């Protein structure tokens, strides 16, 4: 295990997440992709704290905060998606076309 492997893993996860967030049609799929991006940042924080940092406690603490905040964000996102589903009756992002321009 070196820092390079961890960073490569995190960057790979981030790219997969970003690709998924851009290409997925299903809104739940997009939310899962966003989770991947957030967790890529978490791996970075923990890896830098372990191998590199002068202040090695704040990195893991930051990722604990990120996990909590990501949970809040996803709770709000899912609530909004449920309320959107009641109106539009589908989860396809391309069918949300009332507002454009």
């Amino acid at each position, binding site marked *: 295990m070196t820092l390079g492997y961890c960073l490569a893993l*995190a960057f790979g996860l*981030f790219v997969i*997440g*970003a690709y998924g*967030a851009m290409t997925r049609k299903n*809104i739940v799929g*997009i*939310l899962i992709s*966003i989770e991947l*991006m*957030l967790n*890529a*940042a*978490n791996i*970075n*924080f923990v*890896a*830098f*704290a372990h191998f*590199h*940092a*002068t*202040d090695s406690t*704040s*990195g893991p*603490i*930051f990722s604990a*905060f*990120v996990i909590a*905040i990501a949970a*809040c*964000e*996803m709770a*709000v*996102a899912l*609530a*909004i*998606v449920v*309320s*959107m589903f*009641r*109106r*539009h009756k589908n989860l396809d*992002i391309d069918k*949300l076309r*009332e*507002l*454009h*321009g």
Partner: protein
Amino acid sequence: MSIPLLLPDILLLGLGVMILALDLARVKASLVWNVAWMGLIAVLVVLNLIPAGWDRAWFGGNWNLSNFGLLMREFFILSALVTTLLARSNFVRGEEGFGPMRYKPEFLAALIFVTFGAITVVSSKDLLTLFVGLELATIPLYFLVAWNKENAKASEAATKFVLLGSTSTATMLFGMSYLYGFAGSLRFANIGEAVASSPTSPLLWIAVLFLTAGIGFKLTLFPFHSWAPDVYDGASTPITAFLSVSSKATAISFLIIMVYGPLAAIQVQLQPLLILLSAATMTVGNLGAMKQTRLRRFMAWSSIAQAGYILAALTGPAMSARSSVVFYLFTYAFSNYLVFFIASLVSDRREQTFASLTGLSRQKPWLGAALAIGLFSLAGIPPVAGFVGKFMLFGSAAKAGHFAFLIFVGVNTVIGLYCYLQVLKAGWVDTGEEAQEEANKNLRLSFTEGASITLLTLLVLGAGIAPWLGNNIAAVLQYGP
């Protein structure tokens, strides 16, 4: 008289909790609304009793009160207060054909928590506080946009907002993780030292690019602006106004804190990037505003262009950038809220379009005049506040010697003037349908609306005729960081 310096922050948090508690105790919603706006005024008064000149930190150095933070606190609380007043009509009569919105106490509490998040951003001394504050200032906005559950457009707008917003949060967080890896610490002081000692490190520049992309979304900078018209159009009028003022001010404070704090050593190298973003953003905003017919969508494009103007000040030195941005944010908030108050007024039963303004100046000359003053201020016509604000913003860029850029900015303000004059033409010149004129004739202003519009008009005029207000802000900021 000396008061504890943290009192306003604690009072604001207490106010939010108290509003939720009053709701649990089944207190009448109109009473809760009164508690909210009186409480916000009380916090504003307490805040004004704190003399300038502090630079202190609490909680292990993570919570900091500086002069910039003090002025931005006043700004955010003022903005929350005006939004509270603006939101009243949405809960009493509804807008654009929808019935009154429900859950007023929760709405007001969410507004106050967003404001507290914005205050956390301007108090931060390390990346973790900054990140938590930014999220607290963003997450409640997602559901505030979706507040009116009967409105299909609102839920569509909120879905787009939450998906793009979370993506941008993840991007910014990824940038923060690289910044932590680069500096080995989360504290701004340590990051600043690391940046000064190795300003060309690739890790640093990757981090800066990710951070810019993340915050560019919140500030509606050029490649990340496309969400704004849809979300602003779908949300209710008070939330649109709040998004365009408070949320944008949070993002610009974030940039000021980063660019003149930890990244101060590479500010000169950042200038080309900022110039590029600023020029592209204002051009796109002005071009987009040209062909709009709906008022909120127009204000979204206008606020994109305004974000470009504000960013122009960040190419200058720290002192002038801070003071001009603070002053411009105040003038921008006054004029923006003035226009939104009138937009909310004409759309009580009708669609909120340019056409619904027709005949406003003939039927209600005072409202027509207020609209003209608000729009002139946004466009930057001399006697009103927006001109003085823009003058200071561009003066900051001129101090760094970017004259070619400033000529480009000047051309852009002229294009912007054309866009604002289109709205003014709808209110003052156009003779549209008889029904719209008739509806404008029957406009009824509640006391809240009348008083708010009068006060905001006076503030826009006053801040323009008395430019020493801007000098005062400069003087306050001169004490320290």
